[in-house]
């Protein structure tokens, strides 16, 4: 039997491959045009600055903002930190209350936790079974000391999209700033912070087929004019908000990725949502006891998060991980032994959270890839269920909730 060497990548929410057109656009900026964009007195610097300016326009155009409103960073984690810490420091005289959501990315949650130690008061909104926040709850949580509402556009684990426009309206009415980590949304679905009432927005190149190591923070300059306190001291680049020599090839690649996304996003989304739906339907036809996690109405077109009951996610992944790359909400994939906090926040039991896989398709996913994933994962689930004592008990009609488990 020949070894199956096929490799299918359906972990695009972790990172995307860099589009070859992006790589091509970047290459001249490594050797032929190596200048520092801040060098004002020679052509090397001018070329680099032109490359950055053009990229800034391409990126601004993708999200329909002014190029001056784009601050380049090293990635979305830095953008999240800069937005939240920067607002907390800049608007300290206005208040110390921040509202966010339990299902946010760690870059937001851990930043908020850090600020709590520095005097911030943080409200963590719960989500419902669909993964969505309650707008009335958000509105009720806003008080005179509230300076910032931080809600991610689309969730990385489930793909669930929050009611952004409604949140924007509430924030505008209450006069508080609205920040969004839009890493998973930008370049994949139309994102327009101005129309949505978002004042600051973090996003990154490597989730939209650009290179790693470069991200951006959109900061509104007009109505309202928002400022953030810089988190690094240095040369005062990026309108004083983010010092540090610009990553010119990375930024050029980010710009090209934005241009391609603007042109191809709709066709990609349509194609991927069909493939995603086909994948879900095939699992539902092939297997019993599977559950799609999170809203199926308000979600990204390329993502599905599925729990395969009575099978543990990491063990399941081991049946195919030589050939298929994806993620699990199982504890065992992390050092913590806790299952995905995002899925737990949706009200899934820990057992279902341990049994989940996230499939995130991308621009380079083919129909053949989907066929292969359906075949391999279905076989893996059946194999693991044959090994699973709780599957056997379920099949015998034993109520698993009535069993006295020995917690350890």
């Amino acid at each position, binding site marked *: 039997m020949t070894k199956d060497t096929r490799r299918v990548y359906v972990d695009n929410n972790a990172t995307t491959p860099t589009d070859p057109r992006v790589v091509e656009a970047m290459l001249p900026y490594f050797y032929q045009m190596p200048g520092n964009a801040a060098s004002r007195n020679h052509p090397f610097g001018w070329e680099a600055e032109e490359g950055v300016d053009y990229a800034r326009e391409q990126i601004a155009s993708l999200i329909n903002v002014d190029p001056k409103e784009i601050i380049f960073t090293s990635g979305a984690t830095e953008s999240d930190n800069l937005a939240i810490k920067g607002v907390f420091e800049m608007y300290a005289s206005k208040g110390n209350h921040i509202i966010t959501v339990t299902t946010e990315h760690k870059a937001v949650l851990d930043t908020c936790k850090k600020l709590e130690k520095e005097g911030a008061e943080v409200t963590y909104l719960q989500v419902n079974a669909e993964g969505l926040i309650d707008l009335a709850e958000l509105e009720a949580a806003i008080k005179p000391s509230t300076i910032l509402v931080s809600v991610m556009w689309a969730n990385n684990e489930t793909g669930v999209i929050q009611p952004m426009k409604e949140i924007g309206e509430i924030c505008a009415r209450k006069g508080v700033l609205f920040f969004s980590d839009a890493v998973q949304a930008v370049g994949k679905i139309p994102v327009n912070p101005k129309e949505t009432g978002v004042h600051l927005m973090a996003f990154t190149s490597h989730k939209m087929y650009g290179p790693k190591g470069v991200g951006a923070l959109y900061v509104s300059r007009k109505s309202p004019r928002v400022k953030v306190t810089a988190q690094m001291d240095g040369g005062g680049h990026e309108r004083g908000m983010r010092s540090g020599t610009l990553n010119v090839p990375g930024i050029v690649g980010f710009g090209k990725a934005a241009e391609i996304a603007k042109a191809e996003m709709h066709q990609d989304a349509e194609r991927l949502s069909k493939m995603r739906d086909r994948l879900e339907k095939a699992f539902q036809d092939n297997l019993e006891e599977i559950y799609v996690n999170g809203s199926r109405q308000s979600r990204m077109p390329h993502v599905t998060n599925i729990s395969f009951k*009575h099978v*543990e996610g990491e063990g399941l992944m081991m049946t195919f991980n030589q050939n298929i790359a994806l993620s699990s909400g199982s504890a*065992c994939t992390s050092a913590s032994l806790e299952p995905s906090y995002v899925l737990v926040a949706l009200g899934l039991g820990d*057992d279902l959270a*341990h049994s989940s896989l996230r499939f995130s398709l991308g621009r380079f996913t083919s129909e053949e890839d989907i066929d292969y994933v359906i075949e391999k994962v279905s076989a893996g689930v059946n194999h693991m269920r044959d090994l699973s*004592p709780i599957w056997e008990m379920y099949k015998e009609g034993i109520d698993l909730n009535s*069993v006295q488990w020995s917690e350890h």
Partner: protein
Amino acid sequence: MAYSDKVLEHFQHPRNVGTLDKSKATVGTGLVGAPECGDVMRLQIEVDPSTSTIVDAKFKTFGCGSAIASSSLATEWLKGKTIDQALSIDNMTIVEELALPPVKIHCSVLAEDAIRSAIADYQQKNGIEVAVAEKTH
């Protein structure tokens, strides 16, 4: 995270997967762990009462690769051992044999618990004084 060759080998070719008739007096069943914790092991032994020797062992495990490998290895080791010998199997021996990383040590602990629990079940069924109290971790 890479798995050791031994974990992979047991995962790909698990030994002694299956179910023994738990109603038989000669069969002891241990069910340990919890679905909420991400691993449940069911380990069963069949004992020859005349010699107190384990003649067969089967397992089913819900869990990660290391949990499956730990229980597969445990069943392999149990066969042919007397109850007393089986009780001396220590989780750290499993850790060493499978080269489990620190984050997976709990899988070996669970396997040891499963062995002890299966033996205790057999002893209780047969009115034998439970030799060693179950270790708690």
